[in-house]
């Protein structure tokens, strides 16, 4: 086993204690759990505030706007000319500051301007997103109901395609409420049957979701238990060994 550095040992030890603190919630909510829960939120928030400034605001906007990305060469010339159009970024900066009018009772309506702009932008982008997202699915759902394998019919594939198309249509029909069915009519009985089939096939889908969700949730738990049993116990042992060596214990 490779020797762990002091900081790595500390990271793992603290990680294990934090994990046990969260697990203590299973017995009963307690202050140990609450402390670490709040610590997690604080760290996440702190992380989330600095990174957008570091990765976007400073290098892409403020630095070019202030001309700080222009360097002077040894002969006195400059790497590039300053583009005055960059000053146009002041407009979205000032407009974005209207978010903070939300704290004023009199001017809080101005925050709706900014929110409206962003909502409108996401609404406008949704068109391109929708067509790129749905059209390939629509194309893919036009499956041949009879599939030939050479000269003969591939029964399994044909059945699969037919079942897929029937599932797709019946589930879509299940959510179709635009027309009321007339009771007693034959067509209504057929459509009720299609709707019921849609419901049953959806249950198969939800069963698949449940089975997959079990794996997802259990994987998270197994990983944490693996961490505690392997990494954390190794870190405790390594910490004890380092402490012992430090104190001169053989």
């Amino acid at each position, binding site marked *: 086993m490779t020797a762990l550095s002091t900081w790595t040992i500390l990271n793992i030890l*603290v*990680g294990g204690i*934090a994990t046990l603190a*969260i697990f203590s919630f*299973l017995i009963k909510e307690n*202050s140990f759990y609450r*402390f670490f*829960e*709040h*610590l997690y*939120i*604080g*760290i996440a928030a*702190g*992380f989330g505030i600095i990174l*957008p400034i570091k990765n*976007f605001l400073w290098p892409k906007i403020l630095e070019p706007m202030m001309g700080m990305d222009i*360097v002077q*060469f*040894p*002969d006195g*010339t400059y790497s590039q000319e300053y583009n005055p159009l960059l000053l146009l*970024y002041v407009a*979205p900066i000032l*407009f*974005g*500051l209207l978010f*903070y009018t939300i704290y004023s009772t009199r001017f809080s*309506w101005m925050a*709706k*301007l900014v929110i*409206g*702009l*962003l909502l*409108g*932008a*996401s*609404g*406008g*982008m949704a068109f*391109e997103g*929708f067509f790129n997202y*749905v059209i390939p699915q629509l194309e893919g759902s036009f499956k041949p109901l009879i599939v030939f394998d050479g000269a003969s019919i591939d029964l399994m594939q044909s059945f699969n395609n037919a079942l*897929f198309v029937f*599932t*797709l249509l019946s*589930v879509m029909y299940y*959510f179709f409420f635009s027309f009321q069915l007339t009771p007693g009519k034959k067509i209504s009985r057929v459509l009720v049957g299609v709707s019921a089939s849609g419901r*049953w*096939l959806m*249950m*198969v889908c939800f*069963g*698949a979701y*449940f089975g997959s969700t*079990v*794996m997802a*949730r259990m994987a998270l*738990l*197994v990983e944490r238990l693996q961490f505690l049993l392997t990494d954390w116990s190794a870190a405790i042992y390594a910490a004890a060994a380092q402490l012992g060596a430090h104190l001169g214990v053989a």
Partner: protein
Amino acid sequence: MSIRSLLIRGVTFLGGVYFFLKFVLPESTGFATYHEQISDGFVLVGAMALALGLINLLMVHGGKVLYRRKGWAPSVALLVGLIAMMVVTSLDWRETRKISASVQRITTLKDFADRIVLDASKGIVPEIAGEKLPPTVRKRYLLDALRPLASDLHTERQTLLLVVAEDSRASNLTLQRFNNEFSSALADTERLLALEEKQGEDFEPSGLQQLSQALSTLGVSFRGLSTAVYGESLVKHLYSFLFEGLFISLGAAMFSLLGFYISAAAYRAFRVKSVESVLMMTAALFVMLGQIPFGLWISESLPEIRLWLLEVPSAGAAQAIDMGASLAGLVMAFRMWLSIESESFK
């Protein structure tokens, strides 16, 4: 409808009109020529909301701590975590900027070499304060700046390595590798510098291009070395402690509780009482058994059955739900864009 309401609706519409037109108009119209700048503008507007969350957290939890309201103690943990992470991330950023500034001395000369070659190929002769700067003169400026820099880099390399503890220096393979790469790149640069100096006033573009390449490699390796040294610093260790030690562990642990909850839910809530629930449970059973090693002990066909379930009936139903939801999403987006349902804007 008041002017305020009209204004809000107008701004909402304007927000979406660019993206809508960008999608419907052909690229040949050149409508989206400034797409990057316009996109950055929109992102910038959204980024201005950064401090809103911070202000809210400080108001709620800061207020709890200041006035000793009920449950104030965990709020201290939140504020400590928040401030600690902000400080450490800012320090991390400051240190990486210092590294960038240090590397920039090299990349500036690299860019200068490229500019000399480019201007010479285009016949451009810049002028500064009445002095014309032909390529030969500019080359002299470049070499005069590079000579002391190369000398300084030798010293800086030694200084950097001394910052790192001896045992870390020996065990850190990345540090050793970058150190070797940097030494090699520096030697290469000095060799090319000597060659150029030997040429005197002669200007040969290929020589400067080689020097530019060497400076590029030198910049990358110096940055790598500085970053590897910085990786052994207290700031980086603190960052790693907060992110890997606390944040990752806490996040993983929070979500791992769901494993316990799903077990309890399986016992208490999952009742097989109707045809639908039988179908659901049967499908779930096949999917679960088909994805674990024990399923193979029961039947070799279980993974195939699982795959069939996922590819045929499940995919069909999921696609139907997905398409329906996407269509509903599009309609909602349209209504949002045109402010058709915006009671709060009135």
